[in-house]
Every structure is written in C-alpha cells, then in structure tokens.
C-alpha cells in the first residue's frame, strides 16, 4: 500500500483497466514520430544545458555544462607536489577503475603474462556494473545473428556509432558470454542449457541474457573473485588524479591520491587503461541518477587533459524508468526487464500511452511528454511520474514470476510497503548512462600513445543512444580487449623515462588564453552531498 491515499485511489484505475491493457499491442512509432518526439522532449536537445568547450582537443564541441566545468577545471595538483623519479608503484599495465571493464582488463592482462594493477577510488566492484540489473545482449540463438545485433545496435544509436566498434561489440558477444559462463557466472537457463532470453527496448530478437535482476552484480562479483584469485594487486580507496606522460608524450602512469589520507603516490606503467565509468553523479540538468556514488566522469577529465579526444560527450542516456516514488529510492533504477516481462507504461487515466519497448531515448522522451505537454502524469511531492503496471507481469505470466525473475525490484519497493506484485509503481526518467566518452579504436587505444580506455568511459560504441544490455556487454568485450592490447603493447615497451606532468601547466595556459578563470578542481572524485550548515 502507498502511504499517500490518493496514490492508492489512482492505482485502482490502473487495476480496473489491466485486463484490457494487457491484451493491447501498442503501435510502435514511425521514424518521423520518434525524431520529432526526441527533438521536443529529450533532455539532450535542450541547448541551454550545454556549453561549448573553449580549451582542449574538443574545442568548439558542446558538452553538458557540468562536464564542461570539470573538463576546463584546474588540476588538483601541480608538478611540484610529487617526485616522479621515485615511483611508489611500478607495473606493466595500470588500470584505473575497479568496475566490470577494469576487472576484465586486469584478468586478460594477467592472462597475457604481464604485471597488471588496479587502482580504484572506492572498492573493486563499487561501479555501475554492479548495479546493472536487466541483462547482457549476445546473438547466440538460432533465429539471431551478429549481423542482426549489429543492425539493432547501430540503428538504436541513430547510425552514429563507429561501425568497427559495433562490429567488435556484436562479434565478440557470444564469446564474452562463454567467457563469463566459464568463470562461473550463473546465467538463467532452461533445464537443457538453453539460455532464457528476453527482449530489451529496440531489440529485434530476444537476446537479453540475465542472472535474475542481479545480472551486473553476479558478473561483477565473479570478476572480482577472479581478480583476487589471480593475485592481481588492487589498491582501493586510491584515485588517479593525473595521467603521467613520458618524454615522448606517451602515457606512462598516473599520480594517485589516497582518498582517506590525501597522500599522493606515483604509479609508473608502460601502458595505462582508463576504466573509470560514467557521470551520473554530475546530475546533468538536475536529474536524479541510477549511478553509483563514484560516477563523476573522472576518466574523461584525466584523458582530456593529456589530449585524448572525446566523442559524443553531449549524449546522455536518461533511463525511462527511474523510481518516481518514494523519496528514499527516488531516481533508483527500475530495470527495463520489468517491461521485457510484460509490464506496460500507463498514465493517470489508466491508459497505455506507448509501446513499452521503444529505445530508451524515445521511451524517456515519451514519458516526459506525458507528464508535461499532455498533463497526464501523477503528481507527488517529488514531481510528476507515470505508472509502470508491474502486476501485469503476473497477470500475463502467472503468480511467482516476479519473485523468480525480478527479486531485487520486489525487495527494493517492498522495503517501503509497496508490493509490486499487487500494486503498480511510479516511474520517471533518471540519469543513467554516458553514451559517449574517450574516443577509442577496436583495440581500445585512444589518440594518446599507450593510453587505452574501456567501458562507460569510452565513446563511439553506442552512437547517440545505447540499447539495454549492450553496456554490460561493452564492459566485458572492450574491457577484455583493453587488457589484451595494453598487455601486448606493454611487452614491446621499455620502462618509461623522463616522466613529466608538464601537461598540467600547458593546459592551464590554454585555459588562461581562452579567458577561462576557474576555481573548479577536477577530477571531482566524489559528489558533495554533505549538507553545509
């Protein structure tokens, strides 16, 4: 039951129309309808929320204003603060970030026989990978193929992705699933071993593999366990605050900061992988976020300052179904799998207003339209929201489906007295994913020699919109690739010499020349949520 009686009343309308709504097969929008919907209602199209960069390699490009402030911010250190001639750590491959991409990279680098090391500002596994609920895509069913997956991903990303990256993503997908399965990840399977797969928004085949609705958690904890089994050093509560270059301008390590003592440390490495994840905690346009505490775009700042180029940093994913109520879980993710299993989106009148499995950008824009221009949202103190009719899942698939397939969702709402098996839930878009990032090639190399990027910090794989289940896939496929290629490169690279942080001053000069006078220090590392009295 909802604590607000009005919501219980409104939920009754949804219940009354459930049978009728369940039998509906809502029409999918035409390409033209989608384009005009996005242009009018998607947050990416709000020009006044973006700033054109006036310094760095992406000068002239627009990015979200909060990101621009950090990209054009000042370093947290100056070159005088550290002694680069006496590194505290010496390794072949330095991996910055302990999420799915970082852990995958570490395992592959270790497998290749080089010395790998992970540094992470929180703990290994404190990452968006851990929170990915719904699933991971791979075209491994007989009615599917990597080519069909390619078309879905490329089209869903508005034909903007780098084709060679999409090719890598889809062609290595089945192998990624096999790799995880062989590590012991428990995928949902039939008794004969057939993968239980569902649709995601914008998929044309049912290729969403899952481990209940803890898919990312199951993958992440298994990867973490494997990293520890292999004895790969993990330095936790230690953030990278600057990339170090060598005398030739190649990446050669990073300056690290102990998050608790603030001590600065130097890590020297032959190759460096940025796997720092996303940016939800920058709360673009005031949106709540489904992201973990450390999602502050650090890797983009680190890479940008040494000259790595960004691609599609102006496109963000607002997950259509963030929690709209209650306040304790406001903005938390309600997995797309809820819709994959048959729940529909319903307005205040109990009417289905769209096909529930359009791509995420289209679905988010449609919900925003329903709550604004159409005036059909449900109002609470937290804002406007629409219903996601979860009881429809059991109405269609039978009792017990929710507990078996989406236990995390049942638990999350159950803690606040809402039984999603019996009551619909309120949802509204939440800041979920950074579609763009540091531009990479299929081997995860960036424009800076010996600097690699993988996972959410990388850009170009998903174009301007990512499909559900392609990010867990991306962190595995490109995380592994980063480890493989960074290890190979490390093998043919000598111990770097002439370590320098000159780029800091160079960048400061560029800021000054552009007339940018700022007090902002970056990378941000953690959001500032403590109330100042």
């Amino acid at each position, binding site marked *: 039951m909802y604590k607000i009686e009005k919501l219980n009343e409104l939920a009754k309308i949804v219940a009354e129309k459930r049978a009728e709504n369940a039998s509906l097969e809502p029409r999918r929008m035409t*390409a033209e309808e989608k384009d005009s919907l996005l242009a009018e209602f998607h947050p990416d199209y709000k020009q006044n929320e973006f700033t054109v960069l006036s310094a760095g390699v992406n000068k002239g490009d627009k990015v979200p204003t909060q990101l621009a402030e950090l990209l054009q911010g000042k370093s947290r250190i100056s070159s005088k603060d550290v002694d680069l001639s006496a590194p505290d750590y010496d390794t072949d491959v330095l991996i910055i970030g302990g999420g799915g991409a970082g852990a995958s990279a570490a395992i592959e680098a270790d497998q290749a026989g080089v010395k790998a090391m992970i540094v992470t500002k*929180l703990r290994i596994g*404190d990452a968006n990978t*851990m*929170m990915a609920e719904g699933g991971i895509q791979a*075209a*491994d*069913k007989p009615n599917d*193929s*990597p*080519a069909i997956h*390619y*078309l879905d991903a*490329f*089209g869903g990303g508005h*034909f903007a992705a780098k084709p060679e990256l999409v*090719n890598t993503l889809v*062609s290595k997908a*089945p192998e990624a*699933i096999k790799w995880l*399965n062989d*590590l*012991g990840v*428990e*995928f949902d*399977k039939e008794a*004969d*071993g*057939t*993968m239980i797969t569902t*649709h995601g928004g914008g998929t*044309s085949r*049912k290729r969403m593999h899952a481990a*209940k609705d*803890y898919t990312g*958690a199951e993958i992440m*904890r*298994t990867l973490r*366990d494997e990293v*520890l*089994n292999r004895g790969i050093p993990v330095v936790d509560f230690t953030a990278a605050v600057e990339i170090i270059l060598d005398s030739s301008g190649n990446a050669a390590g990073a300056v690290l900061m102990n*998050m*608790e003592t603030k001590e600065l440390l130097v890590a020297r490495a032959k190759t460096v992988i940025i796997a720092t994840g996303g940016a939800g905690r920058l709360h673009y346009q005031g949106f709540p976020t*489904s992201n*973990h*505490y450390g999602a502050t775009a650090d890797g983009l700042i680190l890479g940008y300052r040494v000259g790595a180029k960004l691609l599609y940093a102006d496109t963000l994913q607002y997950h259509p179904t963030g929690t709209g109520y*209650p306040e*304790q*879980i406001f903005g938390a*993710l309600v997995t797309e799998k809820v819709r994959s299993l048959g729940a529909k989106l319903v307005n205040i009148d109990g009417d289905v207003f769209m096909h529930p499995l359009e791509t995420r950008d289209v679905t988010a824009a449609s919900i925003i339209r329903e709550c604004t221009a159409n005036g059909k949202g449900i109002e609470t103190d937290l804002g406007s929201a629409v219903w996601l009719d979860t009881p429809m899942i059991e109405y269609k698939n039978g009792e017990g489906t929710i507990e078996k397939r989406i*236990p*995390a969702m049942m*638990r*999350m709402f159950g803690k606040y007295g809402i039984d999603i098996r019996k009551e619909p839930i309120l949802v509204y878009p939440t800041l979920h994913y950074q579609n763009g990032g540091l531009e990479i090639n299929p081997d995860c190399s960036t424009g800076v020699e010996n600097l690699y990027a993988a996972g959410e910090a990388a850009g170009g794989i998903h174009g301007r919109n990512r499909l559900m289940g392609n990010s867990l896939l991306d962190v595995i496929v490109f995380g592994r690739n980063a480890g493989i290629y960074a290890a190979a490169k490390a093998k043919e690279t000598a111990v770097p010499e002439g370590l320098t942080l000159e780029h800091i001053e160079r960048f400061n000069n560029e800021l000054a020349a552009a007339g940018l006078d700022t007090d902002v220090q970056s990378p941000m590392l*953690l959001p500032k*949520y*403590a*109330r*100042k*009295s």
Partner: protein
Amino acid sequence: MENKVNVFLFGKKYQVPAGLTIMTAMEYAGYELVRGCGCRNGFCGACATIYRIKDKQELHACLACQTEVQEGMYVATLPFFPLVKKIYDINEIKPTEQIMMQLYPEIYCCIGCNACTKVCTQELSVMQYIAHAQRGEYDKCAELSFDCVMCGVCSSRCPAGISHPQVAMLARRLNGKYIAPDCAHLEERVKEINDGMYNELIEKLMQKPVEEIKELYNTREIEK
C-alpha cells in the same frame, strides 16, 4: 513544519527530517562519506550498518542506503569487515564435497545458532545455505545465496568464524561453471563466429550508405 526524528550516529544525537535513509541522514548531519557508501542502491553491500532502537533489546542490521531513519535509532556503520577469502583456481577445482573441506573447513563448526540468518540485510536463509554447502549441494547453496550483496554482517555475528559470503561465492562459481547445464547454442555460435561465418554479412552492413541502412533498420522484422 518539517517532521524531524532524533537519530544517534555513533552515539551522537542529530535531528534529521523523517523520510531520509540512514545514509542521507548522515549526509544531512554533515558527514562527507568516503567509506561505507557505494552504489547507494542496495546492490554493492558497502554500507552495512547495525542499529538498535533506544530502550529496545534487539540488534538490527541493514544497508544504510536502503533503510529509513526511525526515532531513537542508534547507528553504527560497518564499512569494512575482515572476511576470509581463500585463493583457488576455478579451472582446477571440482564441485566435490571435499573442496569446501579444503577451502572453508570452518563451515563444519557451525553451531546452528542462526544468528547469520537473523541479521542478513537481504533476508536470506544464510544458515540454510551454509548447510547446503556442508553437504556439497552447491546448486542449492547458490540458489539460496543468490541475492547476497556480500556486506559481511552475517560473518560479524558468527561464533564459528565463518565467512558466509565467500563460501556462497565459491558455491555459485562452482554451480555456474560445473553444475548448471552447458549451453549448446552458445558453443555453436562461438564456433561459427570463429570460423568467420558472419564476417561478410557484417562487412556489407558496415559499408552501406546511411540511407540504405536506415531503410533496413526501420523495416526490420521484430520477433514477437
């Protein structure tokens, strides 16, 4: 006027708005969290917390990000707990009863007090999954422990010194790799890709002009 409650963070009293979680209450009180805060969404287990309500006997455990503050709540976070994780090679071990005896023999010292189950922040049947692990029933151990976020509160209460989350982790990997049925269509597809069966098809797609690929995309057949 805003409804406030009194909470005691590490014994010190603060007035915070009702409706906050323990985590947001700490931030409201002015704490800048580094430890004890991860996904803020109930999946990572970073914010294990124990609490007791003033004048009540029972000790509770929870995740700070998933629990609403209550009047008279005495809170202590448990941002780290020294679990024992044993090292093994997943390709070398087998899902036999002996493997638990070798790696985690302390599970056989369980005295059946059920303290682990009582405090589980995910309300799992912890003692029961340990019982399955003792008997080498790794599929059952995996199933019952699946929602574990490895926060470690169970182990903090265990008189036998068991690291339950690590035992369950091993059981799940054994189950996923060795006990769950193999997937034939996955093996088949990996082989087809390695044989280069889809290269030409994808090459063609990659080279198509945008207008052509748009047409293909917009008219593609969608499985019901």
